[in-house]
């Protein structure tokens, strides 16, 4: 068949399909059910025509036009439906804790990298107070002192609510940003995640040690105990996700490094979904609860203890014994 003949015979078909594709591409798609039903078979026909045109060496002008339609049709046909809410609920209830349990070797490493250096520097500063200046510059140390000095607290009065909203915004931006960086830098063979985990651990330990020496323990620990449960655990998980990327590159096993990275990323990004949820909760607690000065220390410790128990038992127990097929995750 000559090209002219070919075009004459089939042009109506691909023009019809092109119009359907344009209709589907526009943001407010309005196609009737019957038209949609015909889309797939027309698209298959188009693929066939494109292959014929290519094989018969018709002019590149025609082949490229058909090729463009094939690409656009493919994009519409293989659009994935994403029932968001349902996936989200099943992820929170079962998918996330189950994933964390499945990846627990990375979680344990990340936890150790955060807490062990922190604990060491904490004890070291209790023993040698000046060591705090090896971790943080003096200006920062004094700003921390000021922040947690019981003298500076307007006791018995809660912060005004608009300040709380401001701090909520600040914590969201700052903390989630930190955890995203901790995760992403893991792709550098894990080095970045290790750095951020150890650095944050050291900073935490140093501040805690210094404030213990200054006997500001009550203001400091009542402040951090509540949101620490969600925030520190979330940082550990994002570090673990970063370590997973790094490890996939270092030890790809039988796969190519690219393929190994791709598979690890698929799991790691799901951990990050969970991390985002946890950090939003943490920022909320930090802004609206931790800053509240009306409550007595024992009340804060009690709630803090409850939150820690909640987080740990969530990861240990939630989603056990459910049908594995119910496990879903937005992807």
């Amino acid at each position, binding site marked *: 068949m000559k090209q002219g003949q070919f075009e004459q015979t089939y042009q109506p078909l691909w023009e019809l399909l092109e119009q359907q594709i344009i209709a589907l*591409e526009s943001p407010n798609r309005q196609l009737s059910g019957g038209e949609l039903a015909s889309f797939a078979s027309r*698209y*298959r026909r188009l*693929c066939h025509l*494109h*292959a014929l045109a*290519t094989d018969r*060496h*018709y*002019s*590149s*002008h025609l*082949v*490229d*036009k058909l*090729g463009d339609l*094939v*690409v*656009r049709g*493919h*994009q519409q046909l*293989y*659009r*994935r439906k*994403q029932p968001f809410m349902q996936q989200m609920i099943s992820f929170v209830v079962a998918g996330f804790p189950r994933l964390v349990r499945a990846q627990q070797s990375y979680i344990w490493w990340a936890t150790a990298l955060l807490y062990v250096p922190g604990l060491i520097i904490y004890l070291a500063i209790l023993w040698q107070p000046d060591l705090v200046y090896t971790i943080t510059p003096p200006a920062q140390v004094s700003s921390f002192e000021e922040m947690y000095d019981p003298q500076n607290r307007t006791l018995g009065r809660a912060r*005004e*609510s*608009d*300040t*709380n*909203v*401001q*701090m*909520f*915004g*600040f914590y*969201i*931006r700052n903390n*989630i*940003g930190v955890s*995203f*960086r901790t*995760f*992403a*830098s893991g*792709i*550098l063979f894990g080095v*970045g995640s290790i750095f951020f985990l150890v650095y944050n651990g050291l900073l935490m330990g140093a501040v805690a040690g210094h404030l213990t020496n200054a006997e500001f323990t009550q203001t400091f620990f009542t402040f951090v105990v509540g949101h620490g449960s969600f925030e520190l655990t979330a940082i550990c998980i994002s570090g673990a996700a970063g370590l997973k*990327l790094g490890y996939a590159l270092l030890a790809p096993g039988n796969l190519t490094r*690219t393929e190994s*990275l*791709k598979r690890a*990323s*698929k799991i*790691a*990004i*799901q951990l*990050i979904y969970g991390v985002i949820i946890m950090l939003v909760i943490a920022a909320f607690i930090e802004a609206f609860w931790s800053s509240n000065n009306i409550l007595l220390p024992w009340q804060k410790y009690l709630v803090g203890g409850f939150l820690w128990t909640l987080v740990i038992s969530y990861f240990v127990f939630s989603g056990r014994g459910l049908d594995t097929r119910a496990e879903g995750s*937005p*992807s």
Partner: protein
Amino acid sequence: MSSHSHPLLDTRHAIETPEGALLPLTPAGFMVRCLAQLIDILIRGVITTIMFVLLSLLGKMGTGVALILAFLLEWFYPVFFEVTRNGRTPGKKWLGIRVVNDDGTPITFGPSLLRNLLRVVDFLPMLYLTGIITSLCNRQFKRLGDLAAGSMVVYDATTAQHTDFAVRGQLPVPADFSTDEQRALLAFAERSNYLSAERQAELAALLVPVIGAQDPVTRIKQMANSMVGKH
């Protein structure tokens, strides 16, 4: 497909679909992507500035809201547009490129979030140096984020807008020319506006053994005319 036998000649990249069709995709290089990114940064910068100015009028409450919005803009601006606008942020749309999964399907939320989080690493040590070097090391111009997410940035198919080749008359294309070879002829005619007459003659002379010695530049353009149906 003949493009497989000459992988270095151009950047076209064919993906086979379940229908047995080959999706012709053209990966976008770092230059056009940097420009798109620049446009997006400008848009984001303007929005962020306006937002902070307006919301700070509302006091601390406003600042808090502005900080949250700034966070969303910083990390989720590209994700939002890539997922809801068929792989195109405003900057990408402007420059005619878009993100797809590397099987050619539209980008989904997970891969989009992943590739945009890993931007932080691709940016290191400055100005996307890591990303640029990585993208030069593979054929689909993938930066680290794309490698991990299994995504790639491709050109939208150009709508055929053939300029006038400044030559009248048609000439049939030799029957044994493959599609890629025809594309080369057409590309030559299209680019001839940007080439000096000497350079055109020099390039066209390469085809003398195939299409005959008589004024090869005009002959090629006449063949191009017949391909796009001009007279």
